[in-house]
């Protein structure tokens, strides 16, 4: 958006403190999710081992293992995950200087001594541990990947389905719209989505129950909102002058739809997408909370939160992951609202 109008929109977005705060939080979350191996890991960021320097944790960011072969430090940690943490009591002559990540525990690393340990800065379990002695903060940092991925992918996929169907309905019109596609949208919209997803997820073989299948299930049951917005936009725009002009120039229907109408219909769709991402994040967390979503030991905010219903004395299992879900959802909502208001001043002045 390099135009003057685009600049104005940006200014209006930046004037909304809520939207900016939400955007900053989400950007931070993306960073945390991407850098998870450097932030919460039992592998060291830097270690002088056997006279050589190793940057073991960085291997989590790129497929270094394939290029360089396995790392000696990583191999040793696979056999003994607590090796570096126990150095003070069991010194290792080969180990020189060590820099561990801020949270020196891997998300799946179970430590018997730390079962249900309370939050403490001294043990570096800042958010405490769960019933298997896994560090909650480490699991939350890695769980951020699940939340972001499921949210964005599910909405991306449902957006593709919804826009394809909605655009076809709005653009083609006629019997295809009124008899087939609109009725399809209508019927799908009446599906008790929550029950359907719960049923599908619950009856599935747990070995197929990972973030990819959950993403697909959320997407195929929640595209109707997008389809409606797309249909309305395509119906509105197909009669506009610039489309008539393009048609007069001999543009094919396909080109009209994809190159002329779609770019102009994109903004309301994107705003809607932002709210839908919030919904998808909530949803994934909810089904994981019920115990039918992402299965442990894989970390997800929802399945950490689930543990508190078994151990009510361990309040940290309830407080922290829930706060992460809340802040993420709030951020998506604030960003969506800010963008919408910036694009459509009528909302803002109300």
């Amino acid at each position, binding site marked *: 958006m390099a135009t003057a109008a685009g600049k104005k929109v940006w200014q209006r977005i930046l004037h909304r403190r809520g939207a900016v705060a939400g955007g900053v939080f989400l950007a931070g979350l993306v960073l945390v999710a991407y850098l998870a191996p450097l932030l919460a890991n039992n592998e060291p960021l830097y270690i002088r081992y056997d006279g050589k320097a190793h940057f073991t944790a960085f291997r989590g960011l790129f497929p270094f293992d394939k290029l360089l072969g396995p790392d000696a430090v990583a191999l040793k940690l696979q056999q003994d995950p607590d090796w570096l943490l126990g150095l003070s009591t069991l010194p290792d002559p080969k180990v020189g200087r060590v820099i561990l990540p801020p949270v020196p525990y891997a998300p799946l690393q179970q430590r018997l001594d730390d079962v249900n340990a309370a939050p403490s800065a001294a043990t570096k379990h800042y958010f405490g541990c769960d019933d298997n002695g896994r560090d909650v903060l480490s699991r939350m940092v890695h769980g951020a990947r699940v939340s972001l991925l499921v949210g964005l992918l599910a909405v991306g996929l449902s957006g593709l389905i919804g826009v394809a169907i909605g655009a076809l309905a709005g653009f083609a019109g006629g019997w295809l719209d009124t008899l087939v596609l609109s009725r399809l949208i209508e*019927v799908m919209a009446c599906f008790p989505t929550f*029950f359907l997803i719960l049923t599908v997820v619950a009856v599935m073989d747990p070995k197929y129950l990972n973030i990819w299948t959950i993403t697909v299930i959320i997407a195929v049951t*929640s595209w109707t909102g997008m389809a409606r917005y797309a249909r309305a936009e395509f119906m509105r725009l197909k009669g506009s002058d610039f489309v008539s002009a393009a048609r007069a120039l001999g543009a094919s229907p396909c080109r009209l739809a994809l190159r002329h109408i779609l770019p102009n219909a994109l903004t309301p769709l994107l705003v809607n997408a932002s709210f839908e991402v919030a919904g998808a994040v909530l949803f994934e967390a909810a089904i994981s*909370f019920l115990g039918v979503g992402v299965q442990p030991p894989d970390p997800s905010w929802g399945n950490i939160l689930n543990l508190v219903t078994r151990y009510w004395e361990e309040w940290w299992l309830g407080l922290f992951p829930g706060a992460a879900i809340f802040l993420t959802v709030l951020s998506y909502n604030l960003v969506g609202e800010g963008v919408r208001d910036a694009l459509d001043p009528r909302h803002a002045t109300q």
Partner: protein
Amino acid sequence: MWVSVSPSQPLADSLIISGPPILRLSETFLTGSPALRLSGSLPTRCGVLNYLVRRLALILPTLLLITAVVFAVVKLAPGNPFSMGQASGEAAVKQMNPQDYEALLRRYGLDRPWYVQYGRWLEGAATGDFGDSFSERRPVGEVFFNAPLRALEEKSSAGAALDQLLSSKFGATLFLNLLSLLLMAAVALPIGVRAAAKRGGWFDRVSGALLYALYSLPNYWVAVLLILLVGVKLQWLPFIGMRSDGFETLSTAGKALDLLKHAALPALCLSYGGLAFISRFARGAVLDVLGQDYIRTARAKGLDERRVLYRHALRNALIPLLTLFGLMLPALISGSVIIEQTFSWPGLGQMYVKAIYTRDYPLIMAESLLGALAVLASNLVTDVAYAFADPRVRLE
């Protein structure tokens, strides 16, 4: 409040415009269901009646499709009630010999293809027979309406009937949801009216921001926090189940108090999300009405502001608000699943989760049907409200 809407703009927007922030029921309550989205095309070309007939005609095929899909999903999944013994720890079932297993499948008609089973289910459902629950070994209707304290059936006073209703799964869920709706209305309406009265004032802004934050709070997290704080730390309220031990020995008032105590936390969790929505909606509705002549007349008569707001403004704004409560139905029903599970509330939601784990097909089907009916009903309410409220429709 039905501000000018371009013909192509979906209803979702026109309903929500009444005031920022944008609030979407479906996300608050995690239904994913289109609680506030208009289904189908906008009725700009045809009259209200015509439109409604068309909407009603679609209900049956929609229900058929929904139940067929749910049925297929449940049937195509691996496992059946008799092979799930391992999960429920019934070793005896696991070691069942193949002949007995086959016989059991035949006995319940599970050896037939899914569409045959669906046909049978449909046949029964049409006559109100939803089959026997596998795990409870009695008809689904009985599980819904009649559960544990069956002894009460013999007594025939109103109190006993109420007791019996409350002891059923359906009654437990109904009680919880009605309480939540009541709570919602009692808190949200005054907030909305007050915010509208001093539009743009500090109360309007603060309540708007606070309610918005509330609305983004996942209700399962609120449930967890409330239990941690009020239930575990302060030990003020119970948070497991619906009744205390020794409930039977309590007096009527004692029973009512006990039920209310148990319901307090779950009802709070179910209601606060709608709070934001309803108060904003009430604010918009009252704002709309405040500009009317009769309000000016009422003020000119010298009535005090409180009376003007509540007796004249709110009362006229209530009609669209009533439809709003109808819209809450699917949201409440699916919200109940999570909340009931968290609080071990013995209602339909908790039963649904259990039914899924035990592959109790008849229960799953009946409950999905109930969910679908709720969504359909709420969509219809939206449509009717919209058709009547849109002047373009009325004029034609």
